[in-house]
């Protein structure tokens, strides 16, 4: 079905847009961004900030029997309306004219900016939003530069505790209602609202309620000003000092697209990044805040080799030599490998090569499950179980875990390699069970009981310190990108696997994760023809899983009904 197109003149140039396009989106597509505060494509449009007012016109209605004179290109003349209209909630109409840069439009913007600022506290020097504040940005572009306001500003509550993770400064609130609409329309937890009237209006939580749902921090992201701030990030760092890395969340199979903000190899915050196929503009708080352990003192920072019952730090070369020497002493059938479904496809490919080199096919993955939340959190809390299945060619990678356990008990598994897992805490293994093996090699970012029970312990980078690809719950291939360097001698898992394979005499000439990706495109028809730049920041559909992401499905439905732009 071809969509009906309408001609619209924007700042003198004619364009075509599908019928029903919001004026603000049409302007954006025409490269004439319209400033706005309350409008958010994923939320309903109350039209309350009035920042998006534009001058609008339509062809005059011809008198009976009269025809409008058309210009050379066949466009009718436009009669401009004296009243501006909001671009956010109105849709384009055939032969509509829009002026985003006329005296009327500019006067409207200047007026709204002035009015937004008269009672605003201008806390910028101590406000977390500074540097990414729409109020700051638009006042540079559309503000007056000086204040005509001689009156006392309205005083409102500051530093209000509205929930465990979000803090409110009512003086900074511009009453755009984005946060209210988010909690109501997306999070189904309508705890926020306005109280009082007029300029004394304040945002508040309803009596006896808290903004405590697992999506509460999204309100901080969409708040165009510094009214809502994250307790976690408050006063930690000026945003302009932070490096941004586009990557994905690895706390569950959804693989929410995120931005990691870091400085000097320390992560300060994580925010969701828009991907309408995966997480829209949102992410759960539990995932967003699960990064502080990355800088913890429990990080493994150097390879460890056990000698006479005690660990000794050593170089990579030495530790890998020890590991290779020990592993070479077993027949393939004596060796088992436990991989993590937090490994990237590239790392899994290396694990597969290691298994082949060692001659074992006893390879399993640790499951991680919880309850799906009917929004974004998947029941599968591993980010890449689909990758494990595809790359290792296993239908049920978890089932083999039982085989390994009975192998340990029965003495048939004599050497165990644990890649980026802590099988004691996370897979129900006991130290005693591991002790039955003759040799245990484990890699992990943190010191942990499995490491304690190992003979060689290697510091493997965590998700934020490595690059590669993963396959999410819907079968989408997405890129994980290294945001920071791992501490000490930490290596990305694919690197340490490469070096281990080399130490075992199985060199393969692969030196970068990108080369590994190329290898995937050779080895797996699903990957055939793909390049990393095609996968890009937003990923590509790779395999059919029949699974959907509930929140995304609901947004699609709202979009179809015209409630949101999407």
């Amino acid at each position, binding site marked *: 079905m071809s969509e009906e197109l309408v001609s619209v003149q924007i700042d003198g140039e004619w364009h075509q847009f599908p019928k029903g396009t919001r004026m603000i989106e049409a302007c954006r597509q025409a490269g004439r961004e319209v400033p706005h505060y309350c409008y958010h494509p994923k939320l309903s449009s109350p039209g309350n*900030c*009035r920042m998006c007012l534009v001058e609008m016109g339509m062809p005059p209605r011809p008198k009976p029997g009269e025809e409008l004179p058309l210009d050379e290109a066949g466009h009718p003349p436009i009669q401009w309306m004296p*009243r501006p209209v*909001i671009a956010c909630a109105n849709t384009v109409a055939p032969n509509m004219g829009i002026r985003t840069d006329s005296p009327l439009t500019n006067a409207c913007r200047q007026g709204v900016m002035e*009015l*937004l600022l008269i009672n605003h506290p201008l806390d910028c020097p101590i406000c977390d939003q500074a540097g990414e504040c729409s109020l700051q940005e638009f006042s540079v572009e559309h503000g007056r530069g000086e204040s005509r306001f001689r009156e006392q500003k309205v005083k409102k509550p500051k530093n209000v505790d509205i929930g465990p993770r979000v803090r409110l400064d009512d003086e900074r609130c*511009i*009453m755009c209602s984005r946060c209210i609409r988010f909690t109501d329309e997306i999070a189904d937890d309508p705890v926020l609202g306005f109280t009082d009237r007029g300029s004394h*209006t304040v945002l508040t939580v309803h009596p006896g309620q808290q903004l405590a749902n697992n999506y509460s921090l999204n309100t901080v992201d969409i708040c165009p000003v510094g009214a809502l701030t994250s307790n976690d990030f408050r006063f930690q760092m000026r945003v302009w000092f932070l490096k941004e890395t586009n990557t994905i969340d690895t706390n569950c199979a959804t693989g929410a697209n995120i931005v990691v903000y870091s400085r000097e190899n320390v992560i300060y915050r994580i925010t969701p990044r828009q991907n309408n196929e995966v997480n829209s503009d949102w992410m759960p708080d539990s995932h967003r805040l699960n990064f502080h352990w990355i800088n913890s003192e429990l990080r493994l920072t150097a390879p460890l080799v056990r000698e006479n019952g005690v660990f000794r730090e050593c170089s990579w070369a030495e530790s890998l030599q020890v590991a290779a020497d020990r592993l070479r002493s077993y027949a393939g059938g004596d060796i088992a490998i436990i991989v993590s479904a937090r490994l990237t496809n590239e790392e899994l490919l290396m694990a597969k090569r290691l298994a082949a080199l060692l001659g074992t096919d006893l390879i399993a993955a640790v499951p991680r499950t919880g309850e799906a939340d009917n929004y974004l959190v998947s029941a599968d809390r591993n980010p890449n179980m689909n990758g494990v299945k595809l790359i290792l060619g296993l239908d049920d990678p978890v089932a083999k875990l039982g085989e390994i356990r009975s192998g340990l008990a029965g003495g048939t598994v004599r050497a165990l390699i644990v890649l980026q897992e802590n099988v004691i805490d996370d897979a129900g293994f006991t130290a005693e069970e591991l002790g039955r093996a003759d040799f245990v090699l484990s890699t992990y970012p943190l010191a942990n009981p499995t490491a304690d029970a190992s003979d060689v312990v290697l510091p493997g980078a965590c998700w934020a310190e490595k690059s590669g690809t993963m396959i999410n719950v819907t079968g989408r291939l997405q890129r994980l990108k290294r945001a920071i360097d791992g501490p000490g001698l930490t290596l990305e898992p694919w690197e340490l696997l490469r070096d281990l394979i080399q130490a075992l005499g199985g060199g393969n000439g692969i030196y970068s994760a990108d080369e590994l990706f190329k290898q995937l495109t050779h080895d797996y028809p699903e990957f055939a023809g793909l390049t990393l730049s095609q996968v890009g920041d937003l990923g590509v559909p790779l395999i059919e899983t029949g699974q959907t992401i509930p929140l995304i499905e609901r947004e699609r439905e709202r979009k179809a009904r015209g409630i949101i732009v999407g």
Partner: protein
Amino acid sequence: MADINYLPGKEPHAREHRMIFRNVDRAGWDTSIATYLKEGGYEQLKAALKMEPKAVTEEVKKAGVRGRGGAGFPAGLKWTFIPPNNTKPVYLICNADESEPGTFKDRYIIHQDPHQLIEGMAIACFAVGAKLAYIYIREEFPEGAKILEKAIAEAREKGFLGKNIQGTGFDLEIYVHRGAGAYICGEETGLIESLEGKRPYPRIKPPYFPAAMGLYLCPTIVNNVETLCHVKHIIQMGGDEYAKLGTPNNTGTRILCVSGDVQKPGYFEVQVGKVTMGELIHDMCGGLKPGRKLKAVIPGGSSAKVLRGGEVFKIKRGDAMVDVSLEDIPMDFDTLAACGSMAGSGGVIVIDDSRSISWVLNNLNAFYAHESCGQCTPCREGSLWMKKITDRLVAGQGAPGDIDTLDSVARQIDGRTICAFGEACSWPTEAFVAKFRDELVADTNPGTADAIVNRETLLAAANLAQ
């Protein structure tokens, strides 16, 4: 028609044409259905029920009755805006929020003649196909709400409401809903939000035109109390006959509420356009207070733009432009609009030369700053700013440039807001500045506080002047 006696001292003025207010202040009249039925009550409903709904609307269109709530929109035309292929329920809402300062008419209908309203509503519901109607009444009328509840119960008992009304198969329930004390609940989409149980934040139009997407996003007709009462009389007289009342395009009667500096303030039901401003003030209201001069008139509720005493307006009459003095303005929709103001809700506020304009404007600004719902930026911030500027004027702390700032703030609101409150709160400032600039500017001189808020003015304002 039987001779009607009114309570002593409450007799209508000879120039009045009592139709809607026929029973207001009437001796021996009460709010019971028995009394109402004695005088042909509900006969027009019975007559309407024998007509085609479309034919009822047609009569209302022919009558040309324009909304008495403020905007003056033709009622019959509004009713035809319900989408023709509509499959959703249709609602009718009677706007009984009457909160525009200077307006006090709907309350008398409610308190003294509730069945007239219910009959008008029932006819309107039949015409537009509504089976459910609400009377949204401002919270300051608790007694009125009780009277309406009782009247509805009586009408139900007599088979004028409820199921299968008068055996015609037409069902209708009317519910009374009380507001919680906010002017903005009178704005029809704010009212609808409030009725839905939410904050009365007016909706953007488009897309939320009530006739298409109103209560619960279903087609909804919102009409003022007085407008709905007229419907009964239109059925009684026939649309064409009704249209002979008043003047062309300004048909019927309307109730003018006069307050302020006149000898005899009060309500007067007149044929629209058949009485001039001068006749209203000098004749019907007994003139100004002794020794006073007319300084200004706000002709249609506090939001209407003020007209200056002695002002002469150029308006079109036929094909010619003629000069009309303030006192010669016929009190109708079109002429007041041509004079740059509006007939609005019929609230005529008379201001004499004892009043300081800064004080008057500050009073209005205080109201609007207090009542702005706060949803949209220009009105939320601008209304309080304007109030604070005039606060300073009144306190003798004006500063040079204040009046220009005041005017420019008003113009940053006007035409740029979600609802017509934006105009309601900015027009007073715009008009007062346009017409009394010199006086306002004079008041920006520090130290003029005493001249603005003097003892006499304050006493007069409280109606305590000796």
